[in-house]
């Protein structure tokens, strides 16, 4: 926590290092200083002791000279020579005071004291400090320190010359504070002189110390061990001293000690001053270093902080702001790289987002984005009366186009369609490719511009053929319209409803349909069917209904078309229209086709065996044409049913043949070679060219029921188409069959037009096998009756 930021870390480290270094320096200086101070203090004290000795010795010499001069004074000598004691005493006092002597004694050459200034205390006694006399005898004079009356004196002995020595005169000078102060002046040491046990109150003591220290010294003096020439620490009051005991050489052997001492604090002052200076310098250095470090750390951490903020912005998805770091160092380079990375990420994310929301092929929004936009559009339509419409769009026959002309072509077509749709729409509208050949459009619809108008407009965009790579192709689309809030209030449901509407449109071959409420269930049923279809065969839910084809001329039932039905356990009987496309989409068509082939061929085999000479017609899906094993399978079935191939007609839709004409031709030829007849189903709805048709090995043409259903005298167009088809077929040697014959008029027209066979409710609806067989039987009876009756006109 404390070391959260880089700056703090750096600063802390810096401070720690500096403080440690400087503390080490200070300690080293302090220790060295202390040692040096102690050593030099000891040296000072020793020098001081020598100075003290020197000063005393010098004083002795000076005193000697003075006394010598005094002793050679004629009057003095004369007085001494007088041998009159009072005279001598008075001259001693007189001359002694001239040189400020504190005592004067005249000693005879023989030894006894002649006179003194001490009230004759010593008279006639031998001089107590005999050593001085002996020394004077040897050297002509002497001086020395001695205790006298418990006080320290410096004594000088010189002869009284007349001119030969006639006596010794001794003059005494007390050693007082002046002397000590002189030492102090020269050495800066405090000097104390003490005579232990010299008098009753414990000793004599003079000192240069201030009065209060003197008191402390007196009270502690007895406790201070007198160790010669060795430093020792002495505490006086609050002050520490370093002291050195220095005994004086005395002439009388008395013990006079001097204590030289110096306040430790005093001696240490220069060192303390030095330490303070170093400390101050260290502190200044520390502050300077800190400021420098702070600037440096800020120079590092600020841009880092900015980079971190930049990274957080990127994390939140904000790529707009560049990190502003102007430095040219590593961090600056990092910032530049960071900004490059930022724009890189932004670009890439934009690309990914685009890819995630757009269709790669057409560049249109994909399902995800479309749902999003749709939701937004719905959310944007707040006012009553605002309606949001979507149009789902599926291209007709796109799979065929794709398979026929190749995927590249299909892709190019989708692109072109996307382009056209986009050009058709307004700015606010959204068109998306939902996948495959599915497109969707969402827009605000209004009374002025309804969804149907939009659908119509879109339809018109498909009117012009698409010109792609030298191929011109017409494409149609089925559209389903759903409107919010009429059909749903949310995007998902709205799309589902539009989808349902679109399938309706496809089913009814309408360009577009609007969702009808309730149609939803159909869509759900489709899904259920789709999932159940797989099991339909296994559960034996499929049945075949047979519808006869009547030879128009002979009026005989010659063919039976096998039509598959699904007896669904829930939905009841389902027509092929409802599940065959689903089977084709889900890949189950092959299974169903095989089942139908087997059942129909077996039934037909049974009929022929029973003498009913019918040809069985079976529908093949476009996908069946791609099953290479199919011809062999049919061979097996024929063999099993002992049925001649000529009794089988396989019906293929015109569009199925057109899907891959080359391949279809190969399969059809294969089947044809086995003796199976082939028929083109739903003729007229596709785009088969005649030349194409000519190459196909077919035997029959089935005219699509859309041309036949409304065939009556009034509908000239249909008659024309049917007639031309019949003529065409006949010209090519094909039989022509009409589907969807529902009334007698149609029948008559077909007969007049020379149609070979007819099929439809007018003759018979598709019937279950039992009923079909019943129908055949009853028809046979009628035919027998008719052999007596002139004609049949049912």
């Amino acid at each position, binding site marked *: 926590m404390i070391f959260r930021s880089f700056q703090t870390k750096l600063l802390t480290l810096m401070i720690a290092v500096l403080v440690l270094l400087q503390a080490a320096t200070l300690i080293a200086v302090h220790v060295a200083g202390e040692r040096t101070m102690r050593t030099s203090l000891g040296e000072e004290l020793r020098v001081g002791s020598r100075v003290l000795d020197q000063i005393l010795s010098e004083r002795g010499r000076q005193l000697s000279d003075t006394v010598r001069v005094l002793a*050679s004074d*004629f009057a003095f*000598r*004369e007085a*001494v*020579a007088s041998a009159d004691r009072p005279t001598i005493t008075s001259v001693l006092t007189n001359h002694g005071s001239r040189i400020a002597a504190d005592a004067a004694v005249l000693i005879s050459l023989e030894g006894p004291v002649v006179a003194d200034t001490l009230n004759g205390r010593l008279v006639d006694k031998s001089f107590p400090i005999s050593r001085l006399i002996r020394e004077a005898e040897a050297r002509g004079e002497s001086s020395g320190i001695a205790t006298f009356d418990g006080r320290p004196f410096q004594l000088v002995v010189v002869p009284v*010359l*007349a*001119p*030969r020595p*006639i006596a010794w005169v001794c003059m005494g000078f007390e050693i007082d504070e002046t002397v000590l102060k002189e030492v102090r002046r020269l050495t800066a040491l405090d000097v104390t002189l003490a005579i232990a046990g010299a008098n009753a109150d414990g000793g004599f003591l003079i000192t240069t110390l201030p009065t209060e220290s003197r008191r402390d010294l007196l009270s502690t003096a007895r406790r201070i061990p007198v160790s010669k020439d060795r430093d020792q620490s002495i505490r006086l009051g609050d002050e520490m001293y370093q002291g050195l005991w220095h005994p004086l050489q005395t002439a009388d052997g008395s013990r006079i000690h001097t204590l030289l001492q110096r306040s430790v604090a005093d001696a240490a002052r220069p060192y303390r001053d030095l330490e303070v200076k170093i400390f101050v310098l260290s502190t200044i250095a520390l502050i300077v270093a800190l400021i420098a470090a702070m600037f440096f750390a800020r120079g590092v951490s600020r841009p880092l902080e900015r980079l971190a903020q930049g990274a957080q912005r990127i994390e939140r998805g904000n790529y707009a702001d560049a990190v502003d770091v102007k430095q040219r160092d590593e961090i600056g380079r990092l910032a530049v790289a960071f900004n490059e990375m930022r724009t890189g990420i932004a670009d890439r994310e934009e690309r990914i987002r685009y890819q995630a929301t757009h269709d790669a092929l057409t560049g249109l929004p994909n399902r995800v984005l479309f749902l999003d936009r749709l939701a937004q559009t719905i959310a944007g339509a707040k006012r009553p009366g605002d309606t949001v419409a979507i149009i789902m769009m599926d291209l007709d026959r796109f799979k065929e186009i794709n398979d026929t002309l190749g995927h590249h072509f299909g892709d190019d077509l989708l692109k072109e369609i996307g382009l056209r749709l986009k050009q058709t729409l307004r700015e606010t509208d959204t068109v998306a490719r939902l996948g495959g050949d599915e497109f969707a459009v969402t827009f605000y619809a209004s009374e002025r511009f309804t969804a149907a108008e939009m659908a119509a407009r879109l339809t018109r965009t498909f009117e012009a053929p698409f010109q792609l790579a030298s191929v011109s192709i017409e494409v149609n689309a089925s559209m389903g319209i759903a409107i919010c809030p009429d059909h749903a209030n949310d995007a998902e449901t709205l799309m589902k409803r539009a989808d349902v509407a679109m399938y309706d449109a496809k089913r009814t071959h309408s360009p577009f349909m609007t969702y009808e409420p309730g149609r939803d269930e159909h869509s759900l049923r489709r899904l259920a069917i789709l999932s159940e279809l797989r099991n339909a065969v296994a559960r034996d839910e499929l049945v075949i209904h047979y519808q006869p084809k009547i030879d128009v001329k002979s009026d005989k039932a010659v063919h039976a078309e096998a039509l598959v039905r699904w007896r669904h356990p829930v939905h009841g009987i389902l027509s092929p229209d409802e599940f065959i496309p689903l089977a084709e989409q889900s890949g189950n068509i092959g299974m169903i086709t095989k089942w139908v082939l087997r059942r129909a061929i077996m039934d037909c085999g049974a009929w022929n065996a029973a003498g009913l000479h019918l040809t069985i017609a079976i529908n093949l899906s476009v996908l069946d044409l791609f099953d290479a094993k199919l011809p062999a399978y049919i061979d097996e079935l024929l063999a099993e049913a002992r049925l001649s191939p000529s009794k089988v007609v396989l019906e293929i839709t015109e569009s199925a043949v057109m899907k891959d004409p080359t391949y279809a031709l190969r399969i059809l030829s294969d089947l044809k070679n086995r003796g199976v007849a082939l028929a083109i189903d739903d003729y007229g709805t596709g785009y088969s060219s005649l030349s194409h048709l000519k190459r196909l090995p077919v035997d029959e043409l089935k005219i699509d029921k859309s041309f036949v259903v409304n065939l009556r005298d009034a509908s000239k167009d249909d008659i024309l188409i049917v007639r031309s088809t019949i003529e065409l077929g006949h010209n090519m040697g094909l039989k022509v069959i009409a589907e969807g014959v529902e009334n007698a008029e149609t029948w008559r027209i077909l007969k007049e037009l020379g149609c070979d066979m007819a099929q439809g409710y007018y003759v018979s609806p598709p019937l279950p096998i039992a009923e079909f067989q019943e129908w055949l039987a009853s028809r046979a009876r009628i035919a027998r009756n008719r052999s007596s009756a002139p004609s049949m006109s049912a």
Partner: protein
Amino acid sequence: MLRTLVSAALLLAAPIASAATLAVTVRNARGAPVRDAVVYAIPEGREVGPANQTAVMDQKNRTFIPHVLPIQAGTAVKFPNSDDIRHQVYSFSSAKTFQLPLYTGTPANAIVFDKPGVVALGCNIHDRMTAYIVVVPTPHFATTDKSGRLTLASLSAGKYALQLWHADQRSDPAPLPVTLTSGEQKQIELVAR
């Protein structure tokens, strides 16, 4: 009384018998000859005649000349000043205390030294000027030369107390009794202490 008789005998014998001579060498304890030592012989049991002589203690170049001047008691000594500066001659010795205040030339009156003893002379303004007048109670005295020798001549036979003095001695040594026969040439070594 006895002393009177002896000296009388000596005096009587003198014309008849020839005089004895005493040669004395004075050395110090280390055997070195001592200069300016005074040796004098005091006849035992005989009176000596009074001294009617004068002696001179000259002062030249700030020096007393001679340094040691032995005289018989009663001799008058003159203190001429041969320097062109003044001197103040004094003595605090008990044998003769006197002083001659600053003077030049020769003072009119000689000073008579009538008491035996050593008189240390000094000049009050020239501390280094010292001299000794050794006042002895006998006419038989002499001063050693630089080789420490002296001769006492014309001594009549008889007993003498031989005394030695020199400036550095601490006290008077005991007198050495010497007996001289007529015409005797006696040699004596003395050790100065």
